[in-house]
């Protein structure tokens, strides 16, 4: 699973935006790499630029300086090798559940798949995500957790090597989120993907990841890189161990310090 082969590399990445109030420096000289099989989480205060980092890996934006590379080549645009999960799900409301899952399979990029292959993939994820009974339903009838599972199924259906997630569980209630964590761990264990997760939940980051990056207040730098030593497959009993809680508390403390810094920044801005 997890290896030392570098796949996505952030090399001295900086990002600035021109705003009406002047230049806003969002990311400063950040370097890190996502290795094959990693589940890497980026935690940090809201507004610190985590989403910008994910948008760079996805190919939606390019850094002002430095480079974001995939296997040594700069990332220029989005592609089906990097699946993205958005906080707002992005489930297509005009398509049924199974049509949503099949969306990527019916594009030109998947033209070498025949109808039977496509159906097999759709059926597989319908079952895996517990959506089989809703295959012909429109998303408006689904709960938030089901929409999130549908988005995950649609992302997985096109067989991406990477899954980039931007606060995907942020809008879910606590129980649904917990169930989604376990589902995600199961599916990842079965399929072995490389994941980059943006989250503000420290607990989520520690439970899911093998590596946690604590991102500082704006402009984003890496405050700390913490290896999470627990073996996969994991289950919820892990969350009751003292080791888990010690790590969580430690990361939480770091994040809270950055949170305070970010708050001070916001206050300063209001005064100015």
């Amino acid at each position, binding site marked *: 699973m997890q290896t030392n082969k570098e796949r996505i590399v952030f090399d001295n990445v900086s990002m600035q935006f021109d705003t009406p109030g002047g230049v806003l420096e969002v990311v400063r000289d950040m370097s890190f790499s996502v290795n094959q099989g990693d589940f890497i989480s980026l935690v940090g205060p809201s507004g610190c630029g985590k989403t910008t980092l994910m948008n760079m890996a996805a190919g*939606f934006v390019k850094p002002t300086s430095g480079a974001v590379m995939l296997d040594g080549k700069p990332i220029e645009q989005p592609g089906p090798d990097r699946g993205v999960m958005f906080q707002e799900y992005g489930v297509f409301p005009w398509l049924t559940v199974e049509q949503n899952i099949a*969306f990527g399979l019916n594009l030109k990029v998947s033209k070498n798949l025949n109808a039977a292959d496509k159906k097999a993939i759709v059926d597989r994820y319908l079952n895996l995500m517990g959506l089989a009974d809703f295959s012909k339903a429109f998303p408006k009838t689904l709960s938030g957790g089901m929409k999130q599972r549908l988005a995950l199924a*649609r992302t997985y259906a096109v067989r991406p090597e990477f899954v980039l997630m931007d606060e995907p569980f942020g809008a879910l209630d606590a129980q649904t989120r917990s169930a989604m964590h376990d589902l995600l761990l199961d599916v990842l264990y079965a399929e072995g993907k490389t994941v980059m997760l943006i989250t503000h939940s420290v607990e989520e980051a520690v439970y899911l990841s093998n590596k946690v990056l604590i991102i500082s207040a704006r402009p984003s730098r890496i405050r700390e890189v913490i290896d999470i030593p627990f073996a996969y497959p994991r289950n919820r009993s892990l969350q009751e161990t003292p080791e888990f809680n010690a790590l969580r508390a430690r990361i939480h403390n770091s994040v809270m310090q950055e949170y305070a810094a970010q708050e001070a920044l916001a206050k300063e801005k209001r005064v100015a």
Partner: protein
Amino acid sequence: MAKAIRSSNRLGNLAWSVFPFICLIAVWMLVHASGWISPALLPSPLEVLQTFWTHLTQGGLLVNMAMSIQRVVGGLLLGMLLAVPIGFLIGWYKPIRRFVDPLVNFFRALPPIALIPLVIVYFGIGEMAKIAILFYASFFAAVIVMYEGMNQISPVYIRVAKTLGATDMEIFLKVMVPMTVPHMLTALRVALGVAWATLVAAELVAAQEGLGAMIQNASAFFDLRAIYVGIICIGAIALLMDVAIRKLSNRLISWQDRAGE
């Protein structure tokens, strides 16, 4: 059981959409019978019905209706035909949206009726003039609705499609088009209303045939009953067309999540 409930609901819905009209007619009859208003100024519903029948059988009411409907549908179709691609252009290319924005806001405020004298100067009073004014009216009504709709479309769907590997063409056909269908139908409904209003105004000013012309001619002869017939016909036809579009919408966009459902 469920079916029985549904069909009784449908009957109930029908009753509820007819009942207000029955009340309106009842009030009309009462006012007429009470004698508050001179019978010369307010014909009774029954008299209007009789006039309706004579006009239908001998007065060329059908021709007038056909003319009006033909103009509305013709102008509406032409307007929509241009409004839909323009709507897409505005939604797709930001620079175009920027360019069009102030223009749209100007034309939004300008009632099409204000252009009728100009149209008469340019196109005369023939069919061409009516189609031109209706085309203008429905085009702008539709483009404005499309424009507002395209502004509301969430960019996340386009991003999702991109990450799944969609080309620009695929994003357009598989994401933009289906997302726009509800706005197109709304645009059609709004344009229909505007087209009717404009048509009658155009026919009042200059036309030989059509419901508006019929009203205008009747008013020259102080034929109040015929005026009422014309007004009621316009309202009824516009309402029926609106109901038809709504039915079509319900079928085409059953996926939409509407509040209160």
